[in-house]
């Protein structure tokens, strides 16, 4: 039984002619299937983007009518359209943190003390006005009553009597209630009501502000595609062969993490600083191995090198062999004949093997972040710079690390950083972040006078944020 192997190695069976046709059909259908899914995927992303865009960037105004009671004799400007205008104007004011006028609410209290009728009516109006605000709505109602309170006390009292005792007529009028469909959290500025009397508009009263801290911490994990741009400075630029040589190179995928501390200056603008770790690099599927130094006595001490766009990587025969074959006794880089006659012959040869270089950086990013809104789902953009320090460099042949270090590299990398993402608030403190990022080096990693090896990376990832 043990001697079956040799005879079975030669054992052949002729396949039916249609087998190849079936394989081709399956290969075709597989590629079509992939393409189909790709189109579906793009379609789904576009559709989702379209829906999100209109959901997130457009507030919905809802007209509620005609339950709200307002005073007759209110200024003509308080028509329905005007109310909408006022609503928008006052909303602008709302974002201004200086728009707090405590004196106004004080004068209202005094008037209320002096007149029980007014108290009653005021309560009624307050109820009408404030109740919707508890739902987070900003409301415009008739300002006639309050306009009389805005001048001096005597005039106010006189007007009050006139207004409240003689000519109070409650009529129903439509008003516009702008309902915020989303939940503001960080900068909550809700007006109790706006005073606008005698055609004079008053700033709104702000009930509360900043319900939570402006500080936020986040941790993001991202999968990145790292590659480089090679700028030819001199010499090599004219050498087309050298350019072609770089064609075998491609980027690498790596995992990056970052931790940020963010401070919000306003509902829209924040600054963040953090620490992150990422790995830049490149991989090539085909390389030319060049014999750089012959050791006539000990062939395994011969030195070979591989030129890459980031510089030359060299190692002894044993290093290359053990990485390439997982065996130091191979004949790929060792002399095939007598000692001193190096292989490959001539002094260089093209070999197929994966050759990966990795440069790890510890990075300090500093960014300005813009938030489009302050809602449950908040899209944001970030732009800034990062200061990276190379912490390690590694070289792999066929996934096995070679002992190699180059002194010809810059250890500092200055980069520009951009990111775009969406933050989903789980509650007042925790949120989930999904974001895409782009990092582009602003200085070269290598010190070559001929080429500039500039890393860049784009990636996508997610993480959590905590608002203090």
């Amino acid at each position, binding site marked *: 039984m043990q001697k079956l192997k040799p005879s079975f190695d030669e*054992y052949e069976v002729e396949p039916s002619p249609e087998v190849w046709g079936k394989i081709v059909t399956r290969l075709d259908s597989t590629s079509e299937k992939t393409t189909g899914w790709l189109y579906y995927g793009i379609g789904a992303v576009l559709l989702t983007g379209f829906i999100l865009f209109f959901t997130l960037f457009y507030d919905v105004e809802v007209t509620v009518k005609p339950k709200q009671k307002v005073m007759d004799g209110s200024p003509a400007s308080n028509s329905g359209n005007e109310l909408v205008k006022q609503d928008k104007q006052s909303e602008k004011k709302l974002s201004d943190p200086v728009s707090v006028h405590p004196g106004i609410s004080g004068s209202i209290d005094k008037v209320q003390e002096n007149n029980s009728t007014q108290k009653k009516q005021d309560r009624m109006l307050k109820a009408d006005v404030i109740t919707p605000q508890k739902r987070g709505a900003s409301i415009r109602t008739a300002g006639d009553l309050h306009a009389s309170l805005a001048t001096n006390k005597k005039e106010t009292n006189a007007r009050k009597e006139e207004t409240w005792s003689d000519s109070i007529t409650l009529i129903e009028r439509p008003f516009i209630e702008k309902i915020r469909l989303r939940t503001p959290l960080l900068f909550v500025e809700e007006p109790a009501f706006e005073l606008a009397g005698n055609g004079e508009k008053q700033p709104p009263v702000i009930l509360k502000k900043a319900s939570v801290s402006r500080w936020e911490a986040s941790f993001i994990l991202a999968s990145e595609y790292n590659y480089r741009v090679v700028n030819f400075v001199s010499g090599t630029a004219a050498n087309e062969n050298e350019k072609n040589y770089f064609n075998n190179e491609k980027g690498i995928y790596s995992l990056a993490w970052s931790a940020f501390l963010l401070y919000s200056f306003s509902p829209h603008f924040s600054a963040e600083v953090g620490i992150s770790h990422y790995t830049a690099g490149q991989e090539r599927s085909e390389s030319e191995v060049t014999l750089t130094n012959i050791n006539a006595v000990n062939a395994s001490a011969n030195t070979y090198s591989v030129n890459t766009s980031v510089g030359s990587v060299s190692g002894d025969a044993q290093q290359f062999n053990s990485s390439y074959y997982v065996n130091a006794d191979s004949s790929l880089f060792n002399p095939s004949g007598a000692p001193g006659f190096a292989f490959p012959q001539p002094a260089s040869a093209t070999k197929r093997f994966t050759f990966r270089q990795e440069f790890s950086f510890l990075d300090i990013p500093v960014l300005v972040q813009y938030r489009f809104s302050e809602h449950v789902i908040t899209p944001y953009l970030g732009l800034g710079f990062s200061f990276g320090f190379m912490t390690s460099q590694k070289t792999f042949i066929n996934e096995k690390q070679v002992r190699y270090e180059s002194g010809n590299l810059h250890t500092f990398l200055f980069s520009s950083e951009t990111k775009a993402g969406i933050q989903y608030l789980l509650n007042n403190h925790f949120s989930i972040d999904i974001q895409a990022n782009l990092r582009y080096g602003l200085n070269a990693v290598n010190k070559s006078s001929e080429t500039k090896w500039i890393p860049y990376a784009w990636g996508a990832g997610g993480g959590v944020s905590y608002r203090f």
Partner: protein
Amino acid sequence: MNFTSEEVLVKECIAGNRAYQEMLYRKFSRRMLGVCYRYARNKEEAEDCLQDAFVRVFKNLQQYKATGSLEGWVKRIVINTILENMRKKSMMYKVVDMEEAFDETGHDDLLDNINIQDLVKLIQALAPGYRAVFNLFAIEGYTHREIAKQLGITEGTSKSQYACARKILRRKLKEQSEEISIRT
């Protein structure tokens, strides 16, 4: 750049060049069908397996490192595909009674000589679990440890399945040779 023809073949196949893919298929299909045939019950099943294996070969060819022979790599894919198909069909490692282990449907033909084709037929007639272990150990040259790892069984199970398979085959070979001697 100097490439051997096999390197060009692989490169073009990865690029999706159908002519080169067919060339690769023609180069290895007969031998690989021979492999499938030993693990399968019949030729149709073997050809189905061959299809699956070659689709997988073309999809994963970029993972092939030129450190070993291409044929060896293709054969490994073929064997993995066979074992996976067997697992999908729940054909592996059923506890089979010794007397039932030999599937009576495939060995009716009385043969004049025991040659490799006949032996393949006898192997095909083994129960699937025995057949897999026998092929992997006696023909592919795997160790019991490797078989155990590959099939997700214990080394002891692999050994016992192989012993059973060998016993059955010996018995059947003996029966066949006796019948042949009676005829002559």
